[in-house]
């Protein structure tokens, strides 16, 4: 009868849970990323006497056909993927913020920016990425440029819509009539109001960028083969999978998946944390 009155008590409030998840994911990511720096360089060397060892206590992820420790290579690869991801996501966010502000200036610019967004979204992501990375000649620089130039559209669309809404609020019009320049309004009103969207967009762009980096590297258009990127590890291991060396692809792939999932978890929870009301309406 009084079902509404039965309140199940949780130990932690939703806010605390969210904060705890954010902290936890930051810590795990931090460990994953920094451990790459502490990898013993000797483990990356060729040790032909230990080649093709299945996962064991001394080589947790096994060794490859040249006797290199796969755990060490995976950790190095994750660090590399992370730095590529952070560079690309950061540049993409900068592009998105710039374009959305540009679109807010007048109707013509808005139409042009919207057209660009539609253009980039209508092309398959990976094709544009391959084209750009190929045009810049491959390697780390080309991958970062390619990722930066392909990941901005969805965030730009969100920011543009948000700005359109803010632009028409009375306090912006009042600010204008008080003699404030567009620049002043952008810095003091728009940016702080958009900050949550920008931060969340940045974090959620990360997993995309990393996955796409691994994809084009796997396809051979990305990072050069000397660099122990996850994509390289995966594509090299393809040749050995048929001989039963499953651990060559399994553990690096799994680590990449774990890293991306944690990033996604982080992004979702930051979003929940900075705009709880909005999150509630999304769930409905």
């Amino acid at each position: 009868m009084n079902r509404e009155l039965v309140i199940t008590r949780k130990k932690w409030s939703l806010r605390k849970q969210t904060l705890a998840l954010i902290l936890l994911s930051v810590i795990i990511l931090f460990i994953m990323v920094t451990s790459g720096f502490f990898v013993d360089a000797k483990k990356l060397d060729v040790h032909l006497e230990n080649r093709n060892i299945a996962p064991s206590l001394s080589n947790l992820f096994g060794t490859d056909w040249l006797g290199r420790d796969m755990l060490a290579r995976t950790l190095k690869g994750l660090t590399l993927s992370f730095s590529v991801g952070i560079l690309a996501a950061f540049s993409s966010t900068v592009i998105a913020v710039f374009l959305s502000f540009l679109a807010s200036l007048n109707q013509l610019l808005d139409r042009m920016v919207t057209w660009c967004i539609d253009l980039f979204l209508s092309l398959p992501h990976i094709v544009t990425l391959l084209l750009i990375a190929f045009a810049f000649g491959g390697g780390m620089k080309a991958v970062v440029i390619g990722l930066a130039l392909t990941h901005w559209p969805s965030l730009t669309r969100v920011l543009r819509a948000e700005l359109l809404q803010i632009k028409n609020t009375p306090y912006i019009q009042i600010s204008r009539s008080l003699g404030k320049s567009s620049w002043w309004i952008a810095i003091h009103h728009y940016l702080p109001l958009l900050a949550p969207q920008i931060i969340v967009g940045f974090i959620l762009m990360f997993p995309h960028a990393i996955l796409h980096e691994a994809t084009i590297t796997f396809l051979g258009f990305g990072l050069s083969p000397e660099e122990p990127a996850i994509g390289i590890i995966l594509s090299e291991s393809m040749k050995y999978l048929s001989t039963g060396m499953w651990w060559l692809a399994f553990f690096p792939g799994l680590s990449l998946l774990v890293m991306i999932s944690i990033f996604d978890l982080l992004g979702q929870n930051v979003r929940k944390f900075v705009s709880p009301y909005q999150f509630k309406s999304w769930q409905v």
Partner: protein
Amino acid sequence: MKPWSGVIMLEARGLSYRYQANQWLFKDVHLTVQRGEIVGLKGPSGTGKTTLGKLIAGYLSPIEGMILLDGKRHIPDGFNPIQMVLQHPEKAINPQWRMSRIFTEVHSINEELLLSLGFKNEWLERSPAELSGGELQRFCLARALGKQTQFLIADEMTTMLDAVTQAGIWHTVLDLVKNKNLGVLAISHDPHLLNQISTRIIDFSSLIRK
């Protein structure tokens, strides 16, 4: 600001506006406000009184017609001497800002005005959500009435407020009209209020042609 210095007349000449194509909200509206007078603009809701106010204050640009100050065309650039106070103060203040930041946005604050509006120091450290409508509206009014403000468009400025606050705020505005020759266009659908404060009253329906 000495009495009768600067601009003495605000004129709206032939203003027309529409939100949708072929559906004029009003056409060819003429209106003048002198400094030192309060013009009451009354009329039923939804007829375009607020839109007219926004056109005069420069929030919207008229599709036809223009705003003139002392016979010269007025195009807002920098601080606009025609300021507007809106009905809903909570929409007129950035929800992220502490109240003290409101005054960083204006370059001149009228200290006497703050005193006569009954400002309290503790309001400044709060966020907009922690103040009442009446308190917020006083911020909006103080922000609009800088030393360079010559005309005030008061769009249902006190409709949301209780009688005592309403009287207090209008008292302050009337003082400014008397002492500083502020010109006021008071938009309201409350005839009693307009009868009390206005020098003359215009019926909005007599202004408009569609």
